[in-house]
């Protein structure tokens, strides 16, 4: 971090007057700047804007992904709202995201508190805790799928716990727990690092002053630590929701949407647009999904106001 903001040694601040003529001298834009900007704008327009516009247009048609089609107004949108499969996917995705955000934030915060306290082996511990972040979601989901469907039932039987004696991934009521667990396993590290950064911004003097006044540890946590790092909690919530709403890899690895369709996420439903021939229909779904994602992001960002001006 300190290396990031290292001022260059040659940067002696000259008199402010020296700035003016130089700025006036570059009054015309060097055409090279357009050349610098062009690649970004070009790939962005071709790879995101164009597909987004196309998808939006298609959502008002009856296209199956190829061949002729005609415009059918908002019939797709109405159908989406009546489709129990799609509504189920929304219900699952929103509930899963909410639970995961809470679980991840609580665990990440506790780990961050631990790792910023006077513990031994701090660097080694942090190194290990961050590893899940760099492991492929689908690969670790395959590993956990084995554990959930083979090792856990074996342990459940050994301990005589009925609920665990069969695979939780095969149980429509419990499978989502496995998905929350593996998603949390993978996303706790990044949230934890953000909390650590937040905890390190609290000056130690604040705690010292507080403990001189005889405040308890709980009082410190409740009235100093939590308010000061609220902004970081918002960051973690916004980033978390952004990831979990698009959940795909880990679910494919664990349950592939099953059993039945009990763990099918919105992303999985949309991708089916190529299998079932309901291309335009799933584009309408994607448009709705986009609007919901933006709405959730905006609601969260409204809460950021006045929380130390930190925005993701």
């Amino acid at each position, binding site marked *: 971090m300190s*290396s*990031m903001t290292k*001022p260059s040694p*040659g*940067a002696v*601040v000259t008199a402010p007057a020296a*700035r003016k003529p*130089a700025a006036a001298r570059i009054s015309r834009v*060097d055409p*090279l*700047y357009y050349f*610098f900007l062009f*690649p*970004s704008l070009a*790939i*962005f327009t071709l*790879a995101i804007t164009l*597909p*987004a516009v196309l998808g939006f247009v298609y959502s008002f048609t009856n296209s199956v*992904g190829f061949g002729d089609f005609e415009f059918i107004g908002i019939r797709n949108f109405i159908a989406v709202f009546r489709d129990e499969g799609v509504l189920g996917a929304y219900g699952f995705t929103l509930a899963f995201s909410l639970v995961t955000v809470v679980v991840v934030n609580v665990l990440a915060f506790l780990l961050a508190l*631990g790792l*910023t306290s*006077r*513990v*031994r082996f701090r*660097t080694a*511990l*942090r190194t*290990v*805790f*961050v590893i899940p*972040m*760099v*492991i*492929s979601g*689908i*690969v*670790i989901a395959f590993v956990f799928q*084995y554990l959930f469907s083979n*090792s856990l039932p*074996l342990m459940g039987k050994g301990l005589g716990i009925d609920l665990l004696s069969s695979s939780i991934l095969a149980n429509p009521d419990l499978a989502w727990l496995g998905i929350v667990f593996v998603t949390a*396993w993978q996303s706790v590290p990044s949230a934890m*690092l*953000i909390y*650590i*950064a937040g905890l*390190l911004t609290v000056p130690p003097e604040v*705690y*010292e002053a507080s403990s001189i006044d005889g405040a308890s*540890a709980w009082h410190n946590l409740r009235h100093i630590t939590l308010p000061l790092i609220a902004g970081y909690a918002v960051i973690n919530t916004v980033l978390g929701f*952004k990831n979990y709403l*698009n959940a*795909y*890899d880990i679910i494919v690895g664990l349950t592939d949407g099953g059993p039945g369709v009990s763990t099918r996420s919105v992303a999985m439903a*949309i991708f089916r647009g190529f299998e079932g021939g309901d*291309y335009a229909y799933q*584009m309408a779904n*994607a*448009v709705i999904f986009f609007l919901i994602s933006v709405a959730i992001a905006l609601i969260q960002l409204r809460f950021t106001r006045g929380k130390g001006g*930190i925005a993701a």
Partner: protein
Amino acid sequence: MSTATRTIPAEPVTPGPAAPGKGRVRTGPQRTNWAATAVLIVCMLGVLVPLYVTISMAFKTTGQAVDGNAFSLPAPLTLDSFAQAWTLTNFPRGFLISVFVSVTAVVGEIVVSALAAYAIVRNWDRRLFRWSFFYLLAAMFIPFPVVALPQIQLTGLVGLDNPLGVAILHIVFALAFNTMLFTAFLRSIPLELEESMRMDGAGTWQVFWRLIFPLLGPMSATVGIFAFIASWNDFMMPSLIISDPELQTIPVLQKIFQTQFSNSYNVAFASYLMAMGPAVIVYLFTQRWVMAGLTQGAVK
């Protein structure tokens, strides 16, 4: 948890308990919080056990792997599973394709975003550049699933339904975040440096490549590492964009152990281990930038 004896090191990267306290007056004695240490070590098992299972399963024989006991040590130890995984997934080919996607994404993300950020920051008073910045930022709100279906169609249409197309999409989806990081960093570089170089007759091209780009080094390192981790591990994009199964990346190839070879657990785990390895190794060597980058990105 352990708030009673919390201290905050002066420097985020301060290693171990030897260094804190330097230059700061402490009120309490420097005592190690053994209770918190013990709790953290127990929590660490949550990370290590799945990794241990992956490693130990990979070294088992097929006979031992099917007994269902994931936590036993491999006896006898064998490397057969690695050899089988190597040929079953055609590992060398998948590895080269994954390396190609990752390297293209890393270089592309750094160069394309850095160039754009430089042009934007130096011409911020011009509408075109300012608006371009906000245009690029809009991508933060557009996740892949929303535009996936038309993207799959378009990439197929222009012949980019291959690893190159996936690399380009990685560059595009990271563009907003990376450009934001680079612009924030560029604003902290004083203009005087650049002006003196221009005084000596250097053009924008030289100024960028000889002065600005080297100064962006630490930020480029962060952007590059995250680009690598994201593109190396991704399953969603390659599985949907790449149409030829022969050209699939390593994570997508792992699917064959669910469909075709579902009883060769030892081979599957050996393959998983080979898929995880590169990203974990890169992480262990570049930790500093991973930590710094994440917090930078969040706070900027």
